[in-house]
C-alpha cells in the first residue's frame, strides 16, 4: 500500500463515521446527492482533466441510465438489479456509438458535438411522453433492493452511494497511475507526440469517453432508485455545465479535486438558501471568485492550505523542541 491508497482509506474511514456526527437527516440527503455528483465528476475528470477532451453532454448518460432502469423497473416490473444492468449497458453502448464520430472533433467543436447530443437526449426525455412521462416525469421507481434487502433509509443509501463512489475513485486512481493514465495525459498535451510513441490516440479517447459515460450511468442508476422519480430537468444542459464546473473548479487532472468540486458545488446552494433571492447572485460571485483566486482549483487550494498548516505545525514543534528534547534526553 502506498500514500495514494492510504489517503483514500482515511477518506473512506471518515465517510463511514460522518452519518453518526450529523445533526439531522437533511445533511444526509445532501451528502448522498454530493456522492452521486462525486461519481460523475470523477468520471468526467478522467475524460476532461486527464485526456483533455471536453464533454458538455454528460448529463445525457446520467439520464439515459436513470430513465432506462426507471422505466424497466417502474413501468415494466423488472427486478432492480436487471434494470440497473440494462441502464448501464444502454448508456455505455450509446456512449460508444456517439464517441466514434464525435471524438474526431477537436476542442470547441467537440464541446459543441457533445452539447448537441445532450440536448437531443434531453428533448427525447421531454417529448417521448408515453415512455418517459414527459416534462412531469416518471414516478413509481422502486427503491434499491439487492437479494431481498431493500435500501429504504437514507442512512443505508448513504453507504451504498459513497461505497460506490470510493470504489470507482479507486479504479480511476489505478487507471491514472498506469501506462494508460500516462497515455491519456500525453494525448492532452500532444496527440502528435503520443501517436509517435505508439499510442492509438483515437482508441484511447473512445475508451475514456465510454468509461466516463459508465461512471455517469452508475450515478444515474443510483439516482433513480434513491429519489424513485426522474424528470428531464435533472439531466438538462445546466447539469452538464455544472459537472464541467465541478471538474474545473475542483482541479483539472486531480481526482481529489473532482471530489472537492462535487461536494462544494452541492453544499454551496444549500448554505446559501438562508439568503433567499440573493442566493443565486452570491453563488455566481463565489464561483467567479474561486476561479479568479484559485487557478489550480480547490484541490490546489486545499494543498496550499495543508502545506501552510503543516509548516505552522513544524514551526510550533521546532519552537517547543528544545524543552521537549531536553526532557527526553
Amino acid at each position, binding site marked *: 500500500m502506498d500514500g495514494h491508497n492510504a489517503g483514500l482509506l482515511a477518506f473512506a474511514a471518515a465517510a463511514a463515521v460522518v452519518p453518526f456526527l450529523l445533526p439531522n437527516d437533511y445533511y444526509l440527503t445532501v451528502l448522498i446527492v454530493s456522492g452521486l455528483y462525486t461519481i460523475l465528476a470523477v468520471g468526467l475528470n478522467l475524460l476532461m482533466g486527464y485526456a483533455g477532451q471536453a464533454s458538455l453532454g454528460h448529463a445525457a448518460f446520467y439520464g439515459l441510465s436513470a430513465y432506462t432502469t426507471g422505466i424497466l423497473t417502474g413501468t415494466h416490473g423488472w427486478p432492480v438489479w436487471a434494470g440497473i444492468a440494462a441502464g448501464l449497458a444502454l448508456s455505455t453502448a450509446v456512449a460508444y456509438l456517439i464517441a466514434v464520430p464525435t471524438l474526431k*472533433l477537436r476542442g470547441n467543436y467537440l464541446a*459543441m458535438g457533445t452539447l448537441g447530443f445532450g440536448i437531443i437526449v434531453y428533448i427525447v426525455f421531454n417529448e417521448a411522453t408515453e415512455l418517459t412521462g414527459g416534462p412531469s416525469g416518471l414516478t413509481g421507481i422502486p427503491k434499491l433492493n439487492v437479494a431481498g434487502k431493500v435500501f429504504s433509509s437514507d442512512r443505508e443509501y448513504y453507504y451504498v452511494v459513497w461505497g460506490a463512489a470510493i470504489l470507482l475513485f479507486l479504479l480511476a486512481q489505478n487507471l491514472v497511475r498506469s501506462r494508460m493514465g500516462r497515455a491519456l495525459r500525453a494525448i492532452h498535451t500532444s496527440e502528435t507526440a503520443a501517436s509517435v510513441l505508439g499510442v492509438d490516440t483515437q482508441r484511447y479517447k473512445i475508451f475514456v469517453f465510454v468509461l466516463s459515460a459508465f461512471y455517469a450511468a452508475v450515478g444515474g442508476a443510483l439516482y433513480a432508485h434513491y429519489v424513485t422519480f426522474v424528470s428531464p430537468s435533472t439531466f438538462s444542459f445546466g447539469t452538464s455545465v455544472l459537472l464541467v464546473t465541478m471538474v474545473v473548479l475542483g482541479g483539472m487532472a486531480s481526482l481529489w479535486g473532482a471530489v472537492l468540486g462535487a461536494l462544494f458545488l452541492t453544499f454551496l446552494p444549500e448554505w446559501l438558501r438562508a439568503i433567499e433571492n440573493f442566493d443565486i447572485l452570491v453563488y*455566481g460571485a463565489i*464561483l467567479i471568485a474561486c476561479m479568479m483566486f484559485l487557478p489550480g482549483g480547490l484541490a490546489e487550494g486545499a494543498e496550499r492550505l495543508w502545506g501552510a498548516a503543516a509548516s505552522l505545525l513544524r514551526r510550533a514543534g521546532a519552537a517547543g523542541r528544545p524543552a521537549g528534547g531536553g526532557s527526553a534526553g
Partner: protein
Amino acid sequence: MTAASALLQYVISGATVGSTYGLAALGFTVIYNTTEIINFAQGEFVMLGGMLAVFALRWGGVPLPLAVPLAVLIVTAVGVLVNRLTIRPVQGRSPLTMIIITIGVSILLRGGAMLIFGKDTFSLPAFSQGGPIDLGGATLLPQSLWVFGITLLTVLGMKFFFDRTLTGKAMLACACDRKAASLMGIHVDSMVTLSFAFSALVGALGGVILAPITLTAYDVGILLGVKGFAACILGGLGNPFGAVVGGILLGILESLGAGLVSSGYKDAVAFIIMLALLFWRPSGLFGSARAERV
C-alpha cells in the same frame, strides 16, 4: 396555403429567429478571436438587450425609438464591465479557467435580471405599425423586415470595420497572433475590451430586435447562448461571416423541424442536422481545415 408557400413561411420565420442566433454567434466569434474564450455569458447579453428595452419603456417611460438604443448601450457597458472586473485581472490564465468565469458571470447576470425584472414573460411592441405583408401565400411581419435590415447593417458595418479601419485590422491581428500583435505596438488589452463591448452590443441588438416577435424573460439567455454557440461552431469558429450564416441556417433548420416534424422536436431536428454537418466538416462550414503542423 400551398406546400411551397408553407415552406417559404418556415424559411422566413426561421431566418428571423436565426438572425438573432447569428448576432449572438457574432458576439461569440469576436471574443473568441481576441481571447480564445467561449463566453458563456453571451446569451445573457442577448436577454439583457430585450429586457432592458422592455423596462425602459414600461418603467422609465422612455419612448421605443430611444429605449432600444439605450438598452443596447447599457448592455455594451455591462460587457466592458464584465471584462474589466472578471477577465482582465486574470489574463494569461488558461481559456478554460476564463470560460468557467464566464459561466459565473452568466449566473450573476441571470440572477440579477430575475431579482430586478421578476420571473414574468414580457413583450416589446413592434418597431413599426402595420399588418403582416403577404408574400406569395406566406406572411412577413414588418418586424422581420426590421430584423433583417438591422442584421444586414450590422454585418456590413462589421465588414467595413474589419476591412477598412485600423482598429478593426488591429483586432484581426490579435486574433491571428496576440504576441506578434503586441510586438507590433497593438494594445492588446484595449482590443479585448473592445471585443467585449462589440460582443455585448451585437448580442443586445439581437435580443432587442427579436423581443417583439418571441417575447422575453430573465431566463431566455441560456437557450439563446447555446444556439449562438452552435451557430458559430457550425459556421466555423473564428469566422464572423460564417457565424451569421450559421445562425440563420440554424434558425431555418429549427423552423423546418417544427413545421415538418413536430414543434417539440424542432431543436432536436436542428441539432441532429448540425451534428451531421459537423461530422462531415469537422471545422465547420466555413472554417479552414487547418493541416496539422508537426
